């Protein structure tokens, strides 16, 4: 019977095995191999512990509950993750103000906000204030404008 404990145990078992398989890619110099504790020792121990513990959980868990995810908004969650990834790609080339503003507005759109006044006024002041706070008060420079505009300005 599959339960949330067992699904988790299987995932972590796979992770531990994958982790264990990668240990042999850690390069060791000949003199390091003879030491009692090398760069590989802790990962080896952890991998074994991970495998053993997930097997223990897999076979001893008495919990029969499945995660209750009925009615979850998976599409919304996926879109939000996509927006975060896009934000990561855009924040440099598009500049802080434009990329952050768009990110917040699109997030609100995904979450169901349709009134454009709220879309603008709940996001842009925050973006501008935050940019001002970082640049002027805390002294952390963040490029506010898209790269090509900065280039044109020279």
């Amino acid at each position, binding site marked *: 019977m599959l339960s*949330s*404990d067992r*699904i*988790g*145990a299987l*995932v*972590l078992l796979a*992770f531990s095995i994958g*982790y264990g398989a*990668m240990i042999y890619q*850690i*390069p*060791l110099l000949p003199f*390091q191999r003879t*030491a*009692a*504790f*090398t*760069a590989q020792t*802790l*990962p080896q121990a*952890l*991998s074994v*512990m*991970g495998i053993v*513990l*997930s097997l223990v*959980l897999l076979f*001893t868990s008495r*919990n029969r*509950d499945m*995660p209750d*995810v009925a009615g*979850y908004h*998976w599409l*919304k*969650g996926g879109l*939000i*993750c996509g927006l*975060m*990834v896009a*934000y*990561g790609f855009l*924040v440099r080339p598009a500049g802080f103000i434009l990329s*952050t503003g768009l*990110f*917040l507005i699109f*997030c*609100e759109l995904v*979450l*169901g*906000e349709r009134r454009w006044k*709220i879309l603008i006024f*709940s996001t842009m002041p*925050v973006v501008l204030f935050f940019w001002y706070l*970082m640049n002027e008060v*805390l*002294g*952390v420079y*963040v490029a506010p404008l898209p790269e090509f505009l900065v280039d044109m300005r020279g």
Partner: protein
Amino acid sequence: MLEGILMGLTTAVSPINLAMVVAGCMVGTFIGMLPGLGPISAIALMIPITYGLEPSTGLILMAGVYYGAIFGGSTSSILINAPGVAGTVATAFDGYPMAKKGQAGKALAIAAYSSFSGGTIATLLLLVAAPSLAAVSLSFHSTDYFALMVLGLTAVAAFAGKGNVVKAILMTVLGLMISTIGTDQTQGIQRFTMGITDLIDGISFLLLAMAAFALSEALLVVLRPKSDKARAKELEAQSNLGSMKLSKAEIKEMIPVIGRSSLLGFFVGVLPGAGATIASFLAYGMEQRIAGEKGKEFGTGSIRGLTAPETANNAACSGSFVPLLTLGIPGSGTTAIMLGALISYGIQPGPRLYLDNPTVFWSVIISMYIGNVVLLILNLPLIPYIAKILSIPSNILTPLILFFSLIGVYFVSFNTFDIHLMVIFAVAAVGLRLLDFPLAPMLLGFILGGMMEENLRRALLINDDSWSFIIERPLTLSILLIAAATLVLPAILSKASVWFLNRVEKNKANES
């Protein structure tokens, strides 16, 4: 010691630090009140801001946020029966029934007074207990530090909450695994970087904490379906607070409860891993047994039933600073994050903190007390206004939480790879949370992992590759033995709290 206290006092009352306590308490209350966001997320969100500050100022801000978030958590427990933090679950048992009777204001006031008294008594105890623990500090070697880290790791057994020790340990191992990614600190060998240059420096603790707590929480808010009924309930509760005044008889009833619960809370808090949640349940159970005839009122809006867990959880918060500041062992997920923050300041928490950085040590303790006062005099009158935050729709609030989490990490590294890595970790964290796997042990394993390995390897180098130091050094051996005991003790404690909980429910069922 007196000199240290004076130094700490001077630092703590400097204008900037006072401002930080006030700001921290306000922001903490604000964040803690949002259902789902607890002190861990609140403190994680603060870390990027504290990077630019002095270590003591940064820590003071975080301590303020910690207290504020616990207090805010109580507020949402009382008003909408939605504890933002596990530590305030017991608060809702009697707080919410009081609010339903139209005494929300009174319940909030009781919570504030109890928190204040619990915090005050615990801070006094901290003042006495911490230095005596720190006195043994000079005799610590790397072997003992290794044993200490092991002790810290075994403490996670109690993080499991529902008593599932295997899951908690498995998550700790996962955290340890993540900590091995990057360059090995002793020999400079790259491990598990998969040829990605951005991973050579390892994964930053901040990134992991933000992704696992703040970001995954925001994603869960997006994912979870929310009915209009729940929304209407929230709006109704915050519009109807009632009077906040307490009668003399009520105060008289509260005082002995506060005394007992503070002591209990503090000592449970000191035990690494036990923390505020267990403390509040134990205090609730204890008071119910002592109360006799009045114990029957528990669960229906009893003043004692609200005072006990509120006092105990705050006292336990102060208590959990004892192992953090003196031994470098975090007693809870929240103090684990503060440990990470201390390390990023270049301050090694542990026995030497008291000697090397007395200003940091004492100013944090003193500002914790100031935080208590601020909460009482500033937040109490502001409660009706703060409660308005519950009416900000989540489709505006969630994007902002996402933004602050992402940008908090990005503004430290200026590496866009971090944003993508955070999304990956956040998605994994959401999965683990849905499967009911605790994340705090993972973070603890991650933080302690690197230090543990380094100290163990140093100990082995010093001892010529021999493991005999484990038996030969009495201090190392005794700490390791305590670690073994810690693995078992909290499991018993949490069993006890579950037992108390069952009793409460049974009594409730009998009454109805």
